[in-house]
């Protein structure tokens, strides 16, 4: 039995003003290669006894999760699923540095407990007192898409009726240096390395939702032909066509090595389609696609594509936005297609 699935609410903390959609009309622009997230004043939102032990990544995760649970009226989702490339890398660094400094003795228990990837999902569950399905995907640049696919399948299979999906990554100065040395970030030309904290609630209730999630596909090293077949399969299964897709949100980030893959694939997969971007606003991180899906869902909900999202100036921006296809690739290996539609579709 087919059951429609919706993104009921979404919330972000990133390089753009936190917990808001100000980026639509007044985006903050960056020219530096490394930008940390704009954190809200957590004292306004989190109780001192909750916040005191948490690193920034965990504060962001708990706060965005609480926000979407409140906005969607779901006090305890049936499943909590997180995608994270690096997990709690800041606490991992604190713990490992102490390990070296103290000769593997006298280690702080808090930084140890919070140095694992699955701390994020489990902490949200503890905070919300949820005892259901709890999972974490740590697959570098495809982590968020795996989490979203899991949530989508849980709902399709009827295993859950509400699923909280998150994309959470922090970028420490040390890790940025490593990515820069590897040529992944920090080059010229190139966009900036950023941090991601997105929570979104999936469910079956259409009223008040941001958009409909119609399908998720991931693929490993597909050729352009294979990617085309996967895309067509997604569109057919969703009873949609490429003609009905109003725009494609892609993961260009200004770095030649990354963008060359899009330059090769996009003209073959989506010829003539308006292309949208989001990493110029939110930066690059392993789970940045979570921010891309959040941005596309927001655009569908608001029924407006701001000019700064277009990769190329459009001849004419679509008036009614029915369908946005999200396409991301990581190092040319992991590719993902996500089809989002307005709630009326």
């Amino acid at each position, binding site marked *: 039995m087919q059951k429609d699935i919706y993104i009921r609410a979404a919330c972000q903390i990133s390089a753009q003003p936190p917990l808001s959609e100000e980026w639509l009309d007044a985006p903050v622009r960056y020219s530096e290669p490394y930008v940390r997230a704009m954190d809200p004043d957590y004292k306004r939102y989190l109780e*001192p*006894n909750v916040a*005191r*032990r948490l690193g920034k990544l965990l504060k962001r995760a708990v706060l965005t999760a609480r926000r979407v649970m409140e906005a969607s009226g779901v006090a305890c989702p049936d499943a909590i699923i997180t995608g994270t490339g690096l997990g709690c890398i800041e606490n991992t660094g604190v713990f490992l540095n102490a390990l070296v400094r*103290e000769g593997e003795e*006298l*280690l*702080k*228990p*808090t930084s140890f*407990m919070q140095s694992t990837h699955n701390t994020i999902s489990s902490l949200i569950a503890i905070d919300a007192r949820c005892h259901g399905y709890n999972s974490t995907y740590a697959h570098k640049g495809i982590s968020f898409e795996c989490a979203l696919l899991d949530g989508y399948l849980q709902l399709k299979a009827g295993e859950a009726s509400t699923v909280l999906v998150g994309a959470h990554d922090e970028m420490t100065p040390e890790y940025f240096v490593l990515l820069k040395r590897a040529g992944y970030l920090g080059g010229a030309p190139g966009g900036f390395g950023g941090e991601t904290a997105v929570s979104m609630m999936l469910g079956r209730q259409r009223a008040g939702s941001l958009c409909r999630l119609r399908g998720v596909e991931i693929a490993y090293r597909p050729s352009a032909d294979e990617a085309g077949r996967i895309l067509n399969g997604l569109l057919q299964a969703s009873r949609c066509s490429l003609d009905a897709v109003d725009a494609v949100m892609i993961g260009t980030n200004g770095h030649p090595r990354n963008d060359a893959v899009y330059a090769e694939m996009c003209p073959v997969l989506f010829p003539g389609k308006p292309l949208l971007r989001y990493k110029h606003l939110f930066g690059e991180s392993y789970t940045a696609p979570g921010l891309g899906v959040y941005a596309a869902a927001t655009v569908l909900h608001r029924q407006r594509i701001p000019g700064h999202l277009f990769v190329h100036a459009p001849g004419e921006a679509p008036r009614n936005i029915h369908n946005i296809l999200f396409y991301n690739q990581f190092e040319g290996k992991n590719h993902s297609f996500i089809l989002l539609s307005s709630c009326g579709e």
Partner: protein
Amino acid sequence: MDELILNLKREIIEVLNLEEVKPEEIADDAPLFGEGLGLDSIDALELIVLMEKNYGIKLTDPAQGRELFKSIRVLADYIRENRKK
């Protein structure tokens, strides 16, 4: 305020991230766990590490820890008598 007690309060505030608490707000005889500061078992582990790292006192008996962490004053008295640093 006794210098050791003041230092101990500062160290506890730092190691347990009690950002909202000032040393003078912690009563010397108030219970650290349950009521008072409302610390929990993870905090107890942090305090055990603090005792060893800052004062060279190694606690191996959990029952001993329960007794020592009754209040700041009890803890300070024990440190005064047993410190190796």
